[in-house]
């Protein structure tokens, strides 16, 4: 007897499901994350190559031409997705067309606004629309992930334009981090908390990939909010400032994503979030802005605080065995 049969029987015995319901068609097997990774990467690259090809042939250089090409390709992608959701070739072709269409629309947005902030804001808006409209889980997840990245870029460029961060900008830079990522954190938390509600209302096709996109953006996307000065890893002329602490904020966001991932029992996402947190700590090591000695003290203090918190919580929850979760 399969797990689904066991579950069905248990629900029937509790009176939560009618007995003798016709067995529906076999459930489509879920696509493992690594298969999605292979397909997504290939589709993304195919989209980039496809756009280059179209660019070389038609040479669209005005906003109207780029918008026309973008809308056409996105419409074609949507059509292919809707045409046959079980056809792998159409899925991949649609993904490539969708990526090419999005890149063309990004070019058009740049042509219209001639500003980085305006472009990324329009891209964020486009990604949100794509999350709602595209009928494919992988495409929805990618759109949700890129929506968060574009949103982070939009806030930073709208706030500071392309000016480099410096010591005097720490308070607004910190504020912008919270403006960008608190809504994402709140969104992820809300989606996890209300999971049963949206599953019952048939919204899982939308909420599940959106949640995955939000959690992955919390693990890795926070780099989009990093100060430009953080890119000067080996420059000797960088001022000393507290922006060097930035990656630790990102590491905290990644650990929050790990906890959310555990709440939905997604091991791949837990691994990705922990990997993201480690990468942020490595980035912290290489960042200039403060001395290694200061960073050492910060890490020691953080480590002691985390360990003490773990010990206190452990005592509170009576976990004398020390057994692993």
């Amino acid at each position, binding site marked *: 007897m399969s797990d689904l049969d066991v579950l069905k029987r248990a629900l029937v015995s509790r009176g939560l499901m009618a007995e003798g319901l016709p067995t529906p068609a076999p*459930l489509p097997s879920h696509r493992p994350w*690594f298969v999605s990774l292979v397909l997504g990467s290939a589709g993304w690259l195919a989209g980039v190559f496809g756009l280059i090809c179209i660019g070389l042939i038609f040479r669209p250089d005005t906003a109207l031409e780029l918008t026309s090409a973008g809308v056409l390709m996105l419409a074609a992608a949507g059509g292919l997705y809707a045409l046959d959701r079980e056809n792998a070739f159409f899925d991949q072709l649609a993904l490539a067309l969708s990526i090419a269409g999005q890149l063309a629309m990004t070019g058009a947005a740049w042509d219209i606004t001639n500003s980085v902030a305006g472009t990324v804001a329009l891209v964020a808006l486009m990604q949100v629309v794509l999350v709602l409209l595209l009928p494919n889980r992988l495409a929805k997840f990618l759109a949700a992930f890129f929506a968060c990245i574009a949103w982070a870029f939009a806030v930073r460029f709208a706030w500071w334009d392309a000016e480099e961060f410096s010591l005097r900008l720490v308070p607004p830079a910190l504020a912008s981090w919270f403006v960008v990522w608190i809504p994402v954190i709140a969104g992820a938390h809300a989606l996890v908390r209300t999971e049963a509600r949206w*599953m019952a209302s048939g919204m899982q096709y939308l909420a*599940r990939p959106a949640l995955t996109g939000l959690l992955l953006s919390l693990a890795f996307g926070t780099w989009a909010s990093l100060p430009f000065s953080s890119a000067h890893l080996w420059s000797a002329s960088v001022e000393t400032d507290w922006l060097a602490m930035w990656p630790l904020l990102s590491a905290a966001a990644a650990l929050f994503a790990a906890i959310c991932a555990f*709440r939905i*029992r997604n091991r791949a996402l837990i691994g990705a979030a922990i990997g993201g947190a*480690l990468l942020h700590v490595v980035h912290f090591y290489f960042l200039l802005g403060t001395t290694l000695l200061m960073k050492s003290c910060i890490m020691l203090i953080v*480590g002691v605080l985390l360990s003490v918190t*773990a010990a206190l919580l452990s005592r509170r929850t009576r976990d004398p065995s020390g057994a692993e979760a």
Partner: protein
Amino acid sequence: MMDRNELDAFAAQYKLGREAVDAALEISRARPTSDELWRFAISLLRLAGALSIAAGIVFFVAANWEEIDVLARFGLVEALLVASAGVALWRPPPHALGRGALLFAFVMAGALLALFGQTYQTGANVYELFLTWSVLGLPLVIAAQWSVSWGAWVLVLNVALGLFCSLRPEDGWFWFLISGTRLDAAELLLAPMMVNLSLWGLREYVEETRWSAIAPPWLGRLVLACAVGYGTWAGTIVILGENGNTGGDALALLFVIIAFVCVATYAIRKRTDVFPLAALAGSAIVLTTTALATAVEMDDEVIFFLLSIWLIASSTVSGRLLMKLVRLWAREAEA
């Protein structure tokens, strides 16, 4: 425990109400209890705390603070190493404290080696530090009996091998082992590929023993991904002809293909995990796309069109085959 996507489809097909979905999540153990959530959060905090303290010590060694003399620095790191070993003896693995202490000791072993190189200016390459760290830290990792420690060890080893292959320092004890063989870049990459494949084979063996808990599937996937990565790197070098297409290149590519075929054959015979085949499919897509881009001599627009179509076609075929196996092996496992 049921997969979330299965539950999504189940809830949609039977149009379950809120109460029924809640019950389904509870019955299938898809939603952790508050006790499980607390234990996970505590484990995560413990791990993050231990690693943060270890990172703090590593940063301290790297800072090379002159206010503390050399003896005191060595004393500090050695004292921490001994203390963590002591904690591990007091609460030996599989107790969480013992495991954490041995992971901490493993990091301290690396810090001690770095301090040694920094103090005595040994002239050792960075790869040597990581390689020596992985060798000397191995007993601690074995004693920890913990997959997380093994994951850290695999990372350290692969940083060493990656640095060695990318920088080709022609120095150090690893170079001494192969210096007489005149290996070029592609041939050299076969060594880390084989090291990782051997580790993968070892994990497959351990999985069948009573030690299977310390070698979970994710660890095997990690080393296999590293192996396939090195093999793909070697194959790309050969296809791009960066070494001038020597006879050794052809042999290196042949060796990679044979190794990958062996991995695929094993995975198909075992019929449990599709990951090895997905990794190989990804590698095949990269290698064939590179070959196509190199071989076709046409206008740019034609090349990009062909590459785009090839990527779509090859990934479609890979996806179909992989999903077919996912379904088939899942059915077999249920039956």
